[in-house]
């Protein structure tokens, strides 16, 4: 896509749809009756709630904050529903979720007191210690799924934000590069190059963690 076609990130209160969409993203139901509006919102929740939760979680929202941020995302979408074109709900939800997640991460980063013992030499948060780690649970007490989730959090945390967003949308949500380019307002070529870098980072971090296969006890991380 030529640089001239690069769209800026949509301003608050508007959503322009995909980059090659000539029209503004005004909803065809601009004067929706309340019942139609409710039905549309209900459909959005039924079809996309898992997507919103997953994107938020993988974009860096913690387990404890997830419910609140999901609700915040859906409330934002509800307020701007008239600006969302019919059929473009998914993209708008993803866009909003990423913005909400970025804000949540910044808020947590400002509040977090980093314990020096927890940070490894490469800046990665140490996921577990051999005994009584910062998770305050022994590795044996965690199921494989939870353990993998926490390790995934650490790997994604190590990615730059712009790489992480693309990695999450491509690898977990299986969005196409065209869709991702539309959601983030960037050229497809940029999506492709960031995805390559994100994958390289992912593989490096997984190798660095020295993980063992699932159902076996993990090794000490960060040493």
């Amino acid at each position, binding site marked *: 896509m030529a640089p001239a076609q690069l769209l800026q990130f949509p301003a608050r209160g508007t959503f322009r749809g995909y980059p090659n969409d000539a029209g503004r993203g005004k909803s065809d139901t601009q004067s929706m009756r309340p019942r139609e509006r*409710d039905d549309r*919102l*209900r459909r959005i*929740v*039924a079809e996309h*709630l*898992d997507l*919103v*939760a*997953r994107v938020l*979680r*993988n974009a860096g929202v913690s387990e404890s904050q*997830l*419910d609140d941020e*999901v*609700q915040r995302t*859906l*409330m934002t979408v*509800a307020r701007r529903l008239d600006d969302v074109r019919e059929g473009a709900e998914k993209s708008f939800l993803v866009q909003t979720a990423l913005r909400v997640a970025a804000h949540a991460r910044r808020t947590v980063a400002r509040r977090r007191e980093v314990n020096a013992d927890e940070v490894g030499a490469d800046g990665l948060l140490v996921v577990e210690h051999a005994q009584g780690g910062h998770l305050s649970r022994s590795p044996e007490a965690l199921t*494989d*799924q939870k353990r*993998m*989730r926490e*390790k*995934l959090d650490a*790997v*994604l945390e190590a990615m730059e934000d712009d790489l992480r967003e693309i990695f*999450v949308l*491509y*690898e*977990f949500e*299986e969005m*196409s*590069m065209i869709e991702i380019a539309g959601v983030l307002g960037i050229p*497809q*070529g940029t999506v*492709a190059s960031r*995805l390559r870098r994100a*994958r390289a980072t*992912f*593989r490096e971090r*997984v190798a660095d*963690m020295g*993980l*063992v*296969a*699932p159902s076996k006890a993990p090794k000490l991380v960060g040493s």
Partner: protein
Amino acid sequence: MTEPKRLIDTTEDPNELALLQAGRGAFATAELRANVLSQLGLAPSASSANIVRFPARTRRIALAALVVSTLAAAVPLAYYSLAHKAAIPTATDARESKPVPVVTEARPVSVEESKTPEATPVIAKREAVEPRRVAATAVSNKPVASDYLALELKALDSVRKKMHSGDPKGALTALDAYQRDFSKPHLALEAEVLRIFALDQSGQKDVAKRRAQSFIAKYPKGVLSTRVRRYLAQ
């Protein structure tokens, strides 16, 4: 532009695969779904935000089928209650002078029961022809197979009585005995709801709340779930 295949489809590293799978897990619980709908001012239908709206005709057919199946289950149970009169050892608190309620199906709906504020098993009561003595939960005897359902019902009645008389710890003990005595209970869900309320009344509110949330997550629909949700909302 040709798009690369997803990493999850191409990686041969089990660790990468495990992490990628972890990132694809669904996160929205039924409770979250209901909360979101509530925040948006969209009243959840009936007892769950996930419930599907069926046409009125379908609902009437389903209701008629429920009534027929309830009556069909009641006939053999009534036969058993008349035909089997084997004496079973009883403990003091098991003696009954009033008719024994007979359950008509594993999880029937009773409008009367659902309106009462106290936690009671949701059963459809029918008057028995004559009062019967049944095994008490305080005595850990394995129940006779033919009286299994009636004995379960009796056991949970005992639990309910203890709770009504202000003895939630006694109710919990009785529930433990129920769990020991009935390895494959028909009324497991009713027992779990009773346990939640007993835990709450005995002061173990955190445990009760956790069990209630777990119950809702496993069984989002149904009358029992409605009662548990009402408890959580208080």
